[in-house]
């Protein structure tokens, strides 16, 4: 019997797991995919929003700025990349100027620091490659970028180091209420828990419906993003936001934390919660829009694209509350700025549980930081020499495009990577220009060796996504004779 089970290992579930791992609780997180962070939390823009965007009077508004301030500590403790690169929200039409003023006012009143309206001269100095038709821009220095999946991996590793249990590849199929809590049936196993935290993203209404706690609905809204070749790295140094129109927040130019530029997202209502397809229409919309602010960006520079689903609730705000079923909590409708807000959502939920009578006594042994993975590409020459001396696997580059060594891949596999995507999102191997053309077979070898499984069982991202099949002729020569 667990005290608390979190269903869903996105950024919200992982942040909850780490937060609750501070206390003496029997705690587990159950995730349907083979690794955490494989839902919406890996397919987003990776922006820690500046704090001034979300409207007053909403939970989103309440958590955006508070969330923003948490990330310096998190990045330091959990050893993931984090850069406060700042944001420029640009006005290209006279009627947009008022919006900038209003947004600045909203931010100022909330305490968001450093907001400033920039005139064209200052804009051009900071961003010479932007269109010269920009009238003004609102500079928000607090905006930052991260790799959201790295945050998930770090949060869950920290939670596990502090005693939380993780069960991946466990899709929750049904939930039943018992006298003393709930019984949760996954594809593999039954779990018992006093409390359930439902953090299942776009599936939150479906999971809530398993126990009649679905007093809300989720409307998935798709966003496509396009990652550009390193050639364009540095073309802008701030996040570039257009002034939103009535119908859309607009397409952003995102200097990702690793350097390459990403552009997106689109916004399109979809019915299918697994519809992660990209489209011609999406690409044309994005590049047409981006060209208006930065003419040098072209679709020809795309190296890869992906789509993610926002979990939009009927109220268009976060739903973070006890459900009609006692002991079952919904943390749903976590659309943007959900990534930004996740750390405060976790504390907010913890306080809600405390208020509802859950005994929370702190562990004296709780450790906020993890060791974190090695990053060969970021080491100095001296550090590299030492690393190779210590482990010759640092002397073998597996992924040429991103200079990733065998030692880093082995580390990733030891720390939970089970799939090609898992390796890719942990160490960037296969993420560069060749998109795995050269290194895929090397990574497969390493996965097969370390996990002791046959090559043919290796998947791209879990069940059913096998990369290859064994040959037909498994007959040996004798059989043929």
């Amino acid at each position, binding site marked *: 019997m667990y005290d608390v089970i979190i269903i869903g290992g996105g950024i919200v579930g992982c942040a909850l797991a780490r937060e609750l791992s501070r206390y003496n609780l029997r705690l587990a997180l159950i995730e349907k995919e083979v690794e955490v962070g494989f839902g919406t939390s890996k397919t987003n823009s990776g922006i820690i929003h500046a704090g001034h965007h979300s409207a007053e009077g909403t939970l989103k508004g309440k958590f955006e700025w508070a969330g923003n301030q948490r990330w310096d500590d998190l990045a330091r403790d959990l050893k993931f990349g984090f850069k406060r690169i700042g944001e420029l929200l640009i006005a290209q039409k006279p009627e947009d100027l008022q919006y900038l003023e209003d947004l600045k006012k909203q931010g100022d009143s909330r305490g968001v620091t450093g907001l400033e309206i920039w005139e064209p001269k200052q804009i051009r100095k900071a961003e010479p490659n932007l269109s010269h038709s920009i009238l003004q821009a609102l500079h928000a220095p607090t905006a930052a970028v991260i790799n959201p999946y790295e945050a998930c991996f770090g949060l869950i590793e920290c939670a596990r180091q502090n005693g939380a249990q993780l069960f991946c590849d466990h899709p929750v199929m049904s939930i039943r209420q018992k006298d003393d809590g709930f019984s949760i049936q996954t594809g593999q196993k039954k779990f018992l828990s006093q409390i359930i935290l439902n953090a299942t993203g776009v599936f939150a209404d479906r999971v809530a419906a398993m126990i009649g706690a679905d007093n809300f609905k989720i409307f998935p809204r798709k966003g496509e993003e396009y990652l550009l070749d390193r050639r364009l790295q540095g073309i802008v140094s701030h996040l570039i936001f257009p002034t939103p129109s009535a119908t859309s927040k607009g397409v952003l130019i995102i200097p990702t934390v690793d350097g390459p530029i990403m552009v997106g997202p689109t916004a399109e209502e979809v019915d299918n919660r697994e519809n992660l397809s990209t489209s011609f229409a999406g690409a044309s919309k994005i590049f047409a829009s981006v060209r208006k602010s930065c003419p040098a960006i072209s679709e020809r520079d795309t190296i890869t694209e992906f789509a993610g689903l926002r979990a939009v609730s009927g109220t268009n705000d976060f739903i973070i509350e006890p459900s009609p079923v006692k002991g079952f909590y919904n943390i749903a409708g976590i659309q943007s700025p959900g990534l930004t807000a996740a750390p405060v959502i976790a504390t907010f939920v913890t306080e809600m549980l405390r208020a509802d009578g859950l005994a929370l006594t702190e562990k004296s042994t709780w450790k906020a930081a993890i060791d974190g993975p090695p990053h060969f590409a970021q080491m100095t020459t001296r550090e590299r020499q030492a690393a190779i001396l210590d482990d010759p696997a640092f002397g073998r580059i597996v992924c040429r495009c991103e200079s990733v060594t065998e030692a880093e891949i082995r580390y990733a596999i030891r720390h939970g990577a089970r799939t090609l995507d898992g390796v890719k999102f942990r160490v960037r191997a296969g993420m560069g220009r060749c998109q795995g053309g050269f290194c895929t*077979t090397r990574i497969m070898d390493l996965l097969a060796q370390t996990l002791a499984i046959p090559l043919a069982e290796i998947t791209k*991202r879990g069940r059913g996504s096998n*990369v290859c099949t064994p040959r037909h002729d498994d007959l040996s020569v004798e059989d043929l004779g």
Partner: protein
Amino acid sequence: MKNRLRNKYDVVIVGGGPAGLAAALGAQEAGAEHILLIDREIETGGILNQCIHSGFGLHYFKEELTGPEYAERFIRSVLSGNVEILTDSYVLDISPDLHLEVISGNDGYLHLKGAAVVLAMGCRERTRGAIRTPGFRPAGVMTAGLAQKMVNMKGLLPGRRVAILGSGDIGLIMARRLTLEGCEVVGVYELLPYSNGLTRNVVQCLDDFDIPLHVSTTVAFIHGQNRVERLTIAPVNHQLVPDPSRSRDVNCDTLLLSIGLIPENELSTRLRLRMDPATGGPQVTSTLETSLPGVFACGNVLHVHDIVDFVSEESLRAGRFAAELALGIRRPCDNISLQTGENVASCVPHSLSPDREQTIYFRVKQPMKHCLLTIGDRYEKKFRMLIPSEMIRLTLAPEVLDHYFGGKLKIDVQPQKVA
């Protein structure tokens, strides 16, 4: 092992594929004493190691060899000479004064200097992102070269029912290979109105196996959540935009991409070499020297070749010139700029010297029947057929060049009226 290596070499060659091997031989023949060849893999041979089909060496050795056999001949000659070979070692960076930063599985972290450096890093394949095929992102979409490596080096099949997008040579060769492995190849789809592969590969790999080649056709959508399930195939119009009204679905579990190769430019761009957007590789002189003195380039890192024999020939020269520079032997001075003219997509090198015979390579922009090639007004040659997938190699005599001393020379291809 450690003291085996020097820290100064006459010629350092980056990459041990056919280009690097031939460059090493060339450098040796030209008299360089200290030559180092570095390759990332455990074995030299480069891409040839995974090309177990035959068809290599027809020009160079006048016989038909498999990829590994072809590589073997070069490796043997290199091993019998004074070339030091450092495998399992990766060149991370080269400084403008030709210091190389190398990491090695056996030797750790190394700093070396070359009096001359030859870039021979080969090429990589264009990926799905480069063509932005709409749809899902399932497993089962991979480049043809990766599939080749899986089948030939790992004994695995990429899938059972395979479609191929793009008609590059690797895709054509894989169509045949997978058919022989018992897979069903449902078709090859090519965006352009003509194949991008060598004619001999279209005949030997598709026609002989009844595999259909659909030109002016593309994959308009990839279906399948986890693994490829289906493709929407559509013909394209003149602007190469798919026409959804004439689309149809094809069931398959694998999509191989054979949509082009691009020079491996990581080091070339780090060195800020002057690049040629048409070839995707660096610009070079008649001695295959890049815009940075002492740095040479050859093989697929310079421009993508369709047959390896030309790679070897070109790289022998690059190695020789690199050695001459290292040994302080006076080399010819280029003073003619070579440029692409009518219907010519790209050419190499980018400048010529009138002092000795010059070798040039070029490709046309589109297939042309009965055409006349002119290089300046002193050289012309008739062709029955020229296609973009077949690179043309020519030598020009000093007499042809002399006239252009200090000027420009243009390569033009014009259609000819046939009587």
